[in-house]
């Protein structure tokens, strides 16, 4: 029997939880069909998380593409179908060639499995990021390096801790409802070990009374704890937080059944969410808003 998993019309970090809630009662081996026919929009997080979801299934899942032409065209520009075809049995018309045109896609969906992929991502992002950050988001040119550094560190988390490949995508768009400004969004999703399991593999690790996914996230994201005993480890996410603090950026990390968010003034997200539907790996979203230049 195949269970249909409905993708919401607007798929982002928050609404992806609806997808995971539908998956929660199913075993990993059950056949599913991910139905995106009524989906009109998806964030980089939504698209990379869909690919990670496919990696968690024992039996190759089906995928019904969106009905809307413009949605298909946009998803094609993000590179989604290039990888979805390898992970899902596709249903519906998928464009053979990637559509071109202005899309706000700073970095197409890119697989990250090893150190060389991180180099590739950083090389590709720099030139395009410089133009977009400065011209569209009024962010100082110097920030391009910090932005690329942030991207490098979050991608390395996959290589160092996930134990399997993941996905990264970077995109700019106008966040009209919530912020009324343009934003640049980095999404990095994997279906690997996740923070709790990674920290549990540290030499000499001992379970504490309230050890769970939420505590593992607090340890790694807030306190910079790593599974490696090397004192130089754990600086990546600390550096990312420092960079985002300077540019009013937001960081959220979901792993297992918990999600942690470091929120700037413009956002009202809850700092820690627990008892979410369980999902393997780690899913990271970074949002940097346009800077308002005083007139």
């Amino acid at each position: 029997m195949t269970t249909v998993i409905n993708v919401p019309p607007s798929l982002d970090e928050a609404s992806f939880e609806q997808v995971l809630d539908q998956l929660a009662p199913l075993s990993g081996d059950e056949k599913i069909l991910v139905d995106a026919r009524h989906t009109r929009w998806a964030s980089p997080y939504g698209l990379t998380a869909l690919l990670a979801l496919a990696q968690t299934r024992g039996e190759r899942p089906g995928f019904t593409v969106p009905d809307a032409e413009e949605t298909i065209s946009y998803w094609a520009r993000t590179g989604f179908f290039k990888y979805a075809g390898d992970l899902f049995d596709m249903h519906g018309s998928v464009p053979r060639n990637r559509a071109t045109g202005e899309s706000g896609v700073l970095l197409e969906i890119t697989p990250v499995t090893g150190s060389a992929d991180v180099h590739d991502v950083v090389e590709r992002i720099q030139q395009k990021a410089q133009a977009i950050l400065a011209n569209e988001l009024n962010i100082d040119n110097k920030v391009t390096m910090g932005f690329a550094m942030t991207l490098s560190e979050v991608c390395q988390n996959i290589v160092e801790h996930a134990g399997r490949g993941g996905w990264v995508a970077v995109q700019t768009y106008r966040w009209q409802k919530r912020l009324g400004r343009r934003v640049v969004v980095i999404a990095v999703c994997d279906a690997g070990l996740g923070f709790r399991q990674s920290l549990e593999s540290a030499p000499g690790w001992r379970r504490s009374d309230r050890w769970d996914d939420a505590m593992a996230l607090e340890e790694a994201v807030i306190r910079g704890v790593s599974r490696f005993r090397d004192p130089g480890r754990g600086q990546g996410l600390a550096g990312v937080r420092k960079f985002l603090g300077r540019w009013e950026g937001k960081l959220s990390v979901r792993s297992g059944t918990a999600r942690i968010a470091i929120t700037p003034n413009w956002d009202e997200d809850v700092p820690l969410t627990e008892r979410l539907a369980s999902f393997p790996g780690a899913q990271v979203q970074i949002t940097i808003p346009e800077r308002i230049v005083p007139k």
Partner: protein
Amino acid sequence: MITHIDLSSVLRRTVCELYSNLVTRPTGAAVRGEIELQLTELRDRTLTVIDFAHVGLLDFSCADEVVAKLLLRFGADDAPGEAYFVFRGLSESHLDAIESVLERHSLAMVVQRPDGSAELHGALTPLEREVWGTLYDKGRVTLADLPAALGCDATDAAARCDGLRHRRLVMRFDDAYVAVGATP
């Protein structure tokens, strides 16, 4: 003996001809391994100028692997040789990453500015900065002149300089101390 290491060349030679960014731990470890190999072969006391001029991006992980671990290794009691370092060609973003790792490990280093002068970066006490600054300004200070230069007795003066020597920020030549980065 003064040696010059262009990090960009080391990166291309040891990791990949096409790379211009120092990112990821494996890349940093490979680059540091090559630097250590060069220094170990030299054996004598060395002053090495590590040049970042042609490095694009440096991330925190690579800064930790290349800079922090290099300073830790050659600042340890069982260091493979007596090596001192001056870092040059650093951009603001390189320094951002490096400052973070220096603080984390309580390390310090000498950076050469574009005009050729030098400055200290990292975790240092005001007294350490003052001692290094005095030695740097004077170029070379003999043991006999040290108390007057630092404004304390001979034992304290030698102890302060030896502390900086242990941190690889000051060199000792027979009867004199020279700040790393200074022109004796």
